[in-house]
């Protein structure tokens, strides 16, 4: 036992190090399970109710002090000809799709940050500029951001947007679930202005119950799917629709939290000094092989 010489030790270490770095995939750790409170809030978007008035787009810009056209300009429906995405100048947009149940009334879908329960952006951010709040909101802190844009790559919904046109102090921009408004008891601006209450603000548990109830009472109207209930581990924003969500350009996502895979690899690799240990083990192994080769040649 005591007779293990240096050569044997290095040999074992090399094998073990390689094994650990390759196999140690563990469940995600940074997913903020600890702050997911039972009564966290959400919004239920009923796309069968939305009329595409785009008042939410205006209200959002207004609430975030962003430059905007006057409200009545938003009744222009020609914007629906093109599919739009939320960007650094608009945290939410409404897109229009054909409605298979009634060709006269197209289906309108509001898009914004889904405020995931296990947000990939929070996980990917290397400086902790993103945070998931107890209220459900995922927000971004300008003072910490270094502009690496990992969040943009990580987001399964491609929501965070970067101010590419700003040379000085460009920022990451996305829906903040009206964090400042909800903190003082106000509704999110889009929810408040919606003329048909296609957006219902409430605790996520209540919203899921209401959504299930709507499907149960109207099985012919709705597809039996609440988008966001399980997608990427659940999102604060939930959607109901009368057609398959893939037709409304929702990404097809599994039920596993998005940070799961990347985090387990990242955290697995960096746990227990595995990379330095395995690197030294590899070098040691190489040295041992070269030395033996040289010895045999002599």
């Amino acid at each position, binding site marked *: 036992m005591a007779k293990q010489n240096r050569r044997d030790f290095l040999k074992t270490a090399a094998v073990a190090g390689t094994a650990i770095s390759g196999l140690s995939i563990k469940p995600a750790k940074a997913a903020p399970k600890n702050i997911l409170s039972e009564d966290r809030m959400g919004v239920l978007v009923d796309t069968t109710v939305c009329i595409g008035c785009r008042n939410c787009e205006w209200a959002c810009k207004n609430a975030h002090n962003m430059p905007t056209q006057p409200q009545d300009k938003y*009744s222009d429906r020609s914007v629906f000809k093109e599919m739009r995405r939320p960007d650094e100048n608009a945290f939410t947009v409404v897109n229009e799709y054909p409605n298979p149940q009634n060709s006269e009334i197209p289906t309108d879908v509001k898009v914004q940050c889904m405020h995931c329960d296990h947000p990939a952006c929070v996980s990917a951010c290397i400086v902790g500029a993103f945070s998931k709040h107890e209220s459900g909101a995922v927000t971004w802190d300008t003072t910490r951001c270094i502009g690496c844009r990992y969040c943009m790559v990580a987001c399964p919904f491609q929501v965070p947007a970067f101010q590419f046109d700003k040379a000085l102090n460009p920022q990451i921009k996305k829906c903040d679930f009206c964090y400042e408004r909800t903190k003082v008891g106000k509704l999110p601006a889009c929810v408040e202005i919606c003329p048909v209450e296609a957006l*219902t603000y409430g605790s996520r548990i209540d919203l899921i119950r209401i959504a299930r109830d709507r499907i149960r009472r109207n099985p012919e109207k709705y597809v039996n799917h609440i988008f966001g209930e399980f997608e990427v581990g659940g999102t604060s924003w939930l959607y109901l629709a009368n057609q398959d969500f893939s037709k409304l350009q929702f990404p097809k996502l599994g039920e596993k939290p998005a940070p799961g895979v990347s985090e387990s690899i990242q955290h697995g690799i960096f746990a227990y000094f595995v990379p330095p240990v395995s690197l030294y083990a590899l070098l040691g192994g190489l040295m041992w092989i070269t030395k033996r080769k040289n010895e045999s040649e002599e």
Partner: protein
Amino acid sequence: MKKLIIILIGLSTLCFSQKKISKSHPETNLTCKTCHSCEVPTRQDPCLNACPRASMVTVYQSAEQTKNVVTLGDISKKYEPVIFQHRIHAEMAEMSGGCATCHHYNTSGPIQPCKNCHLLNRKRDDISKPDLEAAYHRQCITCHREWSHQNSCVSCHALKNTTQTASQLKAAQTLETKTHPKLVEPKKLVFETNDKDGRLVTFYHDEHINIFGAKCINCHQQQNCSMCHDKDKVSSINSPEGMPVKIQKSKSEHHKPCFACHQNDDCSLCHQQKIAGPFNHEIRTGWALNRFHEKLSCTKCHGTTYKFVKLDNNCVSCHKDWKVGSFNHQITGLKLDENHVEVDCADCHANKDFSKTPVCTNCHDDKSFPKDRPGKLVSSVQTKTMKSVK
């Protein structure tokens, strides 16, 4: 003693309040539990279940009996109150879902104002039903959107304190007394289709209602204004009032109302190369109706639904009570003489098959019908009867 008085007062108020409740809930087949979730619903806490919709709506008034105009001004801060022309909307609703199209949650008592259930505040505890603003908008916008393809607020709302206000209010007031013109039911419609083998479909609207007994709702389901009126689509057919009638529909949409009954029928039943004639029982079923059957509605023989099943053409299948004494033979055009009045039907009409020529040989070896007759002809109807009874 004090306690007794208190109990008595309590009991009397309870009785009184229950009596009051029953006044606003007239005779109904519903149980309390259909609407109320708790044991003792009160005015303050009626604990109403989530709306059961059409299944419990029993309110019905004709459009003429309803309010002409309803002013909706509970919410508006920015806009003038909405002058809602209730009667004309009620008339239009009569063509589709009736009162229940909008008044979806009512006991058989007086109509509940929307704000009884739909609260004024968007931020509220019970988010299971929309707030008042959303409830109003959802009722209006679906149809108005189909009709105008617009969502702009000012198409319904007049802005407060603007020049536009007065003119919009005036326009709304002129609509107050306007009624929807009476619908002229089409008698016959001919649709031109792309079907090579049967280009034309002739639809007899009057027959489906008057003869086949179809109700409007059997075909006209979930229809609204845009079914006939669409601002942007003008078709070649114009209604008598000059309003454009839309005919552009997908194949499945166009077949849908017919398929409720005709799903298993051959295409050629409707699709023909020329305009089809009106319904003829002989052509359709191979069995001509005689002058008695002609007058009957289909349901008299084929049951109460408007989906008809084939019957056998044996007279006694329907006429179970045809026997001596109860049948006046004179209506067939032949008045039986006194010798034959008492004779059993089956003695002449073998096996009670009245469609075949009667036989005399059961009693008379040397006689035969129609050379010999068991009575006197009632001449005026004779020929017609014999012709139609094969």
